[in-house]
């Protein structure tokens, strides 16, 4: 709190840093951005999205200084490693972490006697500057062409040791680790047993090391232009965030106008005018020279990969091809058209957003309003919560009470999603006399006509009998569903949708704005229904992520990618169907079909290799041979 006070940023009644729904990362002090739970209670994905948004906002200020202080590292030429393996083994004490349990001298001695090993030593701390220097020296002194470090876990230390090898002229992939600390000395007490296991692990690593191959790192130049699909508030915010970092953006909108759903909203709970704000955002983007707006346009084809997408835009009368380094999907959603409840039959039955417009336009007239929540949401077909409709109902209820304090408002609900600070408005509404009545999901309310009067029937667990409520107006809080054409777009981009048809992110908690495929990001309602501030935060985050790719200039792709033995390939397409990244395609070769891998898309998971029946595709660095060698070493037959 004191740090907050020192920065002089405003906070709310609860002590959370104040941010606005349309600038969710910005505090009251320019240049200071808020993220995470400092600005309100939130879950992991929202926290990560907002953190990324704040980072993007901060980066925008620094865009001009990018790479001003970086120095390019020079490496010696790689040495030829094609001869017989000359393996060096470095056994780490890790202080007493390993040596306290494992007899490292004995392990070293055993390692020395393994086939292919020409040198072994022990180190107090292999990862120290001194330890790494000793590896480099030994590579030179003993002409090593493979290095095995028996120490901690490759998950943390492999990058360091690979770099060390590279500095001494060895290809990065000629390195292997034996995990004798995290998976041995730390989990076993018996010295003899732990020593035996450590020796087993070293033998396995040496066996694999002997079969390692040098692999190239691919460097792919990046087209410094982004594509944003969808011109709602999320797409606008993403485009603005990317342009703020100095990159060109193509903003593609299917409709004639930018703005999306916000143009249909009149108020927010906190009393702002979404229509005006959307119009502001449209104007701002329109005047930004870096943003090229394509309205009345859709994306009809995409090929390529991170850094180098080729995109075909379809504007009806003409098609245009553009190149982009990264893509943001912000295609939003739409109101579900309700079924039942006399919707479409009686014009006193309307959706909550229609009611909102009537109230805002002064066309509201009724003495008793019944609002039905969760219409079309949280059911078998659409099991998700649409997240904005409870807020919409609260907003409408409060506006009605303000305009016509005498009017009765009855909200029929299942659970009220007044998450975070919205709870305050729930309290306000109850204080204003709005009646909240829970209904049983198995028996949803029905609407009928008695003569000319509207009649709502509801069974509530809070009262015993079925209630009959006469109403002048019925407002349905209907579900939000994905934008039309989402499925086609997902196929064009080769990115997944969830069961409800919204785009799905790479990791539900930790990567909320990334797709699993590199270079493609998502934001807004296209991902899931949510409120304006969350949509904008997510959009700023996605924009920041998209810009970070463009800022790299070149993209280093993993060298250990999948590889096809064309003679053994049957062109069956199994690998194509299991690859989670769409990295494989079948191409005609003479009369046959043959699989080919795009190394820029491959993530080296090896699922293709595990699935191919005819052993035609493998992942470098995890080949069958290498794994079989480790298995044989484990079983002591080598």
């Amino acid at each position, binding site marked *: 709190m004191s740090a907050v006070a020192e920065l002089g940023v405003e906070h709310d009644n609860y002590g959370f840093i104040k941010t606005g729904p349309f600038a969710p990362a910005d505090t009251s002090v320019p240049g200071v951005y808020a993220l995470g739970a400092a600005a309100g209670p939130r879950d992991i994905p929202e926290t990560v999205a907002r953190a990324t948004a704040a980072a993007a906002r901060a980066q925008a200020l620094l865009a001009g200084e990018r790479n001003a202080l970086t120095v390019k590292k020079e490496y010696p030429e790689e040495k030829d490693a094609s001869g017989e393996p000359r393996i060096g083994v470095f056994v780490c004490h890790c202080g007493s972490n390993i040596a306290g349990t494992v007899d490292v001298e004995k392990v070293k001695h055993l390692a020395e006697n393994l086939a292919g090993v020409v040198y072994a030593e022990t180190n107090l701390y292999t990862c120290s500057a001194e330890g790494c220097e000793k590896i480099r020296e030994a590579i030179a002194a003993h002409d090593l062409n493979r290095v095995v470090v028996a120490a901690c876990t490759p998950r943390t230390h492999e990058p360091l040791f690979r770099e060390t090898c590279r500095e001494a002229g060895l290809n990065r992939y000629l390195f292997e680790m034996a995990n004798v600390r995290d998976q041995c000395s730390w989990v076993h007490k018996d010295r003899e047993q732990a020593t035996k296991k450590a020796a087993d692990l070293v033998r396995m690593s040496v066996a694999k090391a002997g079969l390692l191959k040098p692999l190239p790192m691919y460097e792919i130049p990046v087209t410094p232009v982004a594509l944003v699909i969808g011109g709602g508030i999320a797409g606008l915010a993403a485009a603005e965030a990317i342009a703020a970092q100095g990159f060109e953006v193509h903003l593609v909108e299917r409709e004639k106008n930018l703005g999306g759903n916000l143009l249909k909203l009149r108020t927010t709970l906190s009393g702002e005018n979404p229509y005006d704000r959307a119009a502001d955002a449209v104007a701002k983007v329109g005047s930004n020279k870096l943003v090229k707006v394509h309205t009345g346009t859709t994306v009809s084809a995409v090929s390529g990969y991170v850094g180098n997408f080729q995109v075909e835009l379809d504007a009806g009368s003409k098609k245009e091809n553009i190149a982009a380094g990264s893509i943001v999907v912000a295609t939003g959603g739409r109101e579900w058209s309700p079924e039942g409840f006399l919707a479409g039959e009686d014009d006193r039955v309307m959706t909550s957003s229609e009611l909102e417009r009537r109230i805002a336009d002064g066309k509201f007239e009724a003495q008793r309003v019944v609002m039905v929540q969760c219409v079309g949401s949280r059911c078998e077909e659409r099991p998700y919560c649409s997240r904005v409709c409870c807020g919409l109902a609260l907003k409408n209820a409060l506006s009605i009470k303000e305009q016509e304090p005498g009017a009765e408002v009855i909200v029929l609900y299942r659970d009220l999603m007044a998450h975070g600070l919205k709870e305050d408005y729930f309290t306000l509404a109850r204080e204003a006399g709005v009646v909240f009545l829970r209904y049983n999901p198995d028996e949803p309310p029905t609407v009928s006509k008695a003569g000319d009067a509207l009649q709502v029937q509801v069974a509530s667990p809070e009262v015993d009998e079925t209630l009959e409520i006469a109403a002048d107006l019925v407002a349905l809080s209907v579900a939000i569903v994905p934008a039309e054409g989402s499925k086609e777009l997902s196929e064009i981009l080769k990115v997944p949708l969830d069961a409800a048809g919204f785009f799905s992110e790479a*990791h539900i908690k930790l990567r909320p704005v990334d797709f699993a495929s590199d270079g493609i990001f998502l934001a807004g309602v296209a991902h899931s229904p949510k409120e304006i501030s969350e949509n904008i935060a997510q959009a700023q985050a996605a924009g920041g992520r998209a810009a970070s790719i463009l800022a790299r200039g070149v993209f280093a792709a993993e060298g250990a990618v999948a590889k096809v033995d*064309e003679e053994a*390939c*049957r062109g*069956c397409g199994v690998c194509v169907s299991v690859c*989670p990244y769409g990295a494989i395609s079948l191409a005609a070769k003479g009369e046959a079909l043959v699989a080919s891998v795009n190394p820029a898309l491959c993530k080296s998971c*090896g699922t293709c290799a*595990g699935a191919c029946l005819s052993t035609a595709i493998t992942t470098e660095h995890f080949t*069958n*041979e290498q794994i079989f060698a480790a298995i044989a070493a484990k079983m002591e037959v080598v």
Partner: protein
Amino acid sequence: MSKDWEPSILGICCNWCAYAGADMAGVSRMQYPPNVEIIRVMCSGRIDPAFILRAFRLGADGVLVAGCHEADCHYVSGNQSARRRVEALADVLDTVGLGRDRLRLRWISANEGALFAEGIRDFVETLKKLGPSPIEAPKLAKGVTTRTQGGDVFAGGRSTRNLSRGELHEGGGSPLRESELASESDPSVNQVDFQALVAETGVLNCLECGKCTASCPVARRDETFSPRRTIEKALEGLAEDIETDRLLWSCLTCRTCEQRCPSGVSYSEFVRGARAEAKRLGQQGRTSHSGANHDLMRLQAAPKLKPNRMAAYEGLKVKEKAGKDDWLYFAGCAPYYQALYSELPVQVGNIPRDSVALLNRAGIVPVVMAAERCCGHDLLWNGDVEDFAALARVSAEAIKATGARKIVTSCPECYRTLAVDFKEHAGLDLEVKHISEVLAADAGALGLSGTGEVVTVQDACRLGRQMGVYDPPRELLAAAGAQVAEMAHTRGDALCCGVSAWVSCGQCSKSMQVARLKEAAATGASTLVTPCLKCSIHLTCASSGELPVPRQEVDVKIMDLTAYLARAAGLTVAAEEPEPAMAAASDKGDA
């Protein structure tokens, strides 16, 4: 079980979750028994059933496969592939008698160190109850060891038989490497064996007319392949050249060339012998399926293994001991291939059941062996004579123990192997027949009702060109009221299904399969009936995948002969869909 025996467990863990979970156990200093060593892969989807089978075949007592929780896969869906494969493999382990309890699949996240540690403790307990694996570790053959003496902590390696270096790397899938040739082998010894092979297989009589190459379906598709040229080399005594030649593994041993050879050169047998020499020389050869099928066969050579195959015969009439005239029914690999290829729409799992039902209908109550093992055909034709012989000896003992004097098989490969190769390698000399021959002898007894369909027949190489059986399948189909339409290449000229002994499947195989399916579809037949389950698997594999031709050109149903007859005899309700092996295993193989 020796008192101080400790189970040996191989762990295969994905980098992001399970391996990280194991690290987390370390960071939290959670103690667990030191029986496990982990191989790290990036994703559990990388795990090939061959890895697991290799570990078991080398004597592992248990294998732990671990990856990310269902929805948490770092690579989106790799773990689902892993799950399907491991669960199918668990069924296979049950069938071969090793038992699914030795294979565990666990989902462990990066922070679940406790779950990892507890998982190992529990697995070690389970394995201690199960006892040592019935499969003992082989030992490297003399002269090919790649490890110098390691000292005391490695003392006491278990040894039963020798293992060549080539065998050790088999399934690698990569092209042969010159550097891998063992310089330790003595070429002069090799030369003697080779010359004997050349003489025995009639290669010396070759006229160099080139008819073999002209008729060979592989040579037609791969211009680098030529049986005639190989024979030329053999005549020049270039043993090494042949045995290190990648193309040695491309021959299908289909015998098409032998139909044409005017001097009776037995090229397929020459290839079989040359492969054995090559293996002895340390060649890894080529295998499809990463060598999984071969390891599955090798591990069945363990005498202590107790397979149980009786479930297939429930409700049917079978015997355990033979009277004087009783047939022994030998089922072969059908049950475990059904599970192993659960991702293909193969339908071979019911072959044993349909066969015995048909035999019963013909008035035959066959002897069956609960502990039946693979015949080993694919090891033999892959050049792995030693493993074949070990397996054949175990099977021969078991067959003799039933007292049976004659054997009926539903698989042409078992047929050839039991009839010819068991004699040479395991001293078993009994009458052997294919089920089509036995049933055709009294087709009237089967009560076949007219299907009225047009069908066509695949002449499997082992049944036709090797054993000379062409008519019985046709007679049976005619008895079932089917009209047999012949394909463009038929009987002795029939086109092979493209793979034999799981050696070198690939582009050429697929091309042959597509050609064969086109021939079948062109006859107008609705069904391609095959008397061989391998033909059925390979052709189904081709037709179920992507195709280089429009699908309607190869649109023909593939059905095993026994399944077709059993249906015509009213012994099955309908052709059952292949049972999804994963559903059956889901409550057992999983965490």
